[in-house]
């Protein structure tokens, strides 16, 4: 299995092909529906984002609360298509990796190819297992959104699959 780092390098992106299974280590940011809506509105208004997404990774997740003694609660991926409306504008700002589950629309895939980004998936519902690869969680912003706030996760050997590579090859199209 390939090992990659977050933030990802240009070389790593080029080396990833749809269907590859990878173990990722480094750090990423979490964001789902409500945080995307806020960031999208900031971009529309020409304002700065609370997180510089250039070169970064966003994981579509809203974790369950952590039990005492845990770094993070169960945290599997949420359905990515709900972020399709917002993703191209983040990709245009340099976002390199999106992690979620399920399909993306054509606009997102075109934007990925144009910007040299990849879309990875985690196994939906394997939330307790995935949480084992999250070593640290830190609140970054939008605390009022509860589980939908933006967190920074430190990850170690997070198991992922390349669903759509930077050339637009798609594991779901068979």
């Amino acid at each position, binding site marked *: 299995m390939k090992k990659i780092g977050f933030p990802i390098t240009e070389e790593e992106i080029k080396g990833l092909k749809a269907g590859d*299974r990878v173990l990722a280590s480094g750090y990423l940011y979490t964001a789902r529906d*409500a945080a995307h809506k806020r960031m999208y509105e900031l971009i529309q208004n020409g304002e700065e984002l609370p997180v510089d997404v250039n070169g970064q990774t966003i994981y579509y*997740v*809203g*974790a*369950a*609360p*952590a*039990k005492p003694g*845990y770094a993070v*609660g*169960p*945290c*599997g991926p*949420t*359905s990515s*298509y709900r972020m399709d409306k917002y993703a191209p504008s983040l990709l245009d700002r340099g976002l390199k990796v999106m992690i979620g*589950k*399920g*399909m993306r629309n054509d606009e997102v895939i075109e934007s990925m190819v144009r910007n040299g980004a990849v879309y990875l*998936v985690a*196994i*939906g*519902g*394997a*939330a*307790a*297992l*995935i*949480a*084992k690869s999250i070593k640290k969680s830190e609140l970054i912003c939008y605390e009022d*959104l*509860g*589980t*939908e706030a933006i967190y920074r996760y430190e990850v170690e050997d997070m*198991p992922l*699959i390349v669903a759509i590579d930077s050339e637009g090859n798609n*594991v*779901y199209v*068979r």
Partner: protein
Amino acid sequence: MDIREISAEEITAAVKKLFMECNYYAGDDISQAIKTAQENEELQIAKDVLQQLIDNNEIAAREQIPMCQDTGMAVLFVEYGDKVAVKDGSFREAVEEGVRRAYVDGYLRKSVVTDPVFDRKNTKDNTPAVIHTEIVPGDRIHIVAGGKGFGSENMSSVKMLTPSAGVEGVKKFVLDVVAHAGPNPCPPMVIGVGIGGTFEKAAQLAKRATLRPINTSNPDGRYAALEEELLSEINKMGIGPAGLGGKTTALGLNIETYPTHIAGMPVAVNICCHACRHKECTI
């Protein structure tokens, strides 16, 4: 039969237990179906994904943490005996308090927002629940509780078929909904089909069907055969575990029916993920 008093606290405690346990422990029917599917898969990726689900569910049960982070919106089907009186409170508030305690004390995710369109503010305790109550004869309360995740809920659909569509129309609609859902609802799925009644009754039947163990069949042999046929057709689609290909697109398919109008044949398809969480109790 005399009136039987049940304390609000007893109802609250029962509801809390149902929601915590259904989120921590996969049902035996689901665990067995995943295990069998894992043995039958030929594609390596499908085998591996199913193994991850087996491992995941073992971790969740052992550590008493939710198997999926989306611990759902609380749905309850209640059969409320007409000889039951709730002491020291109301039934509705007792149930809501049980949901509140399960989600707050049990480290379950709070996923409910107040107003659906304008405010969308998290209620912070996962209330209110969706409660379907039927008054039945007797002095007991039977509760079927389900934590419904929305990755799969969003892939569900209702269609007002008309009588001439027949069984072929039902089949086509169910298969279309599942094909359209594809990898999004966390396959392998559990599929609930509700046929008959009215617009809202069909949807309610479909939800109830997802809460019936998948190792049971509709008591009417014709529907039991239809359950088997549809499941077999769905598993030929090749969507597979996590949508990455394979023979296991659905673990089970249940049909529930109700009489309907001479002019209609409503059909609802409620999709559930492999984490098909439900538990029941009688008070």
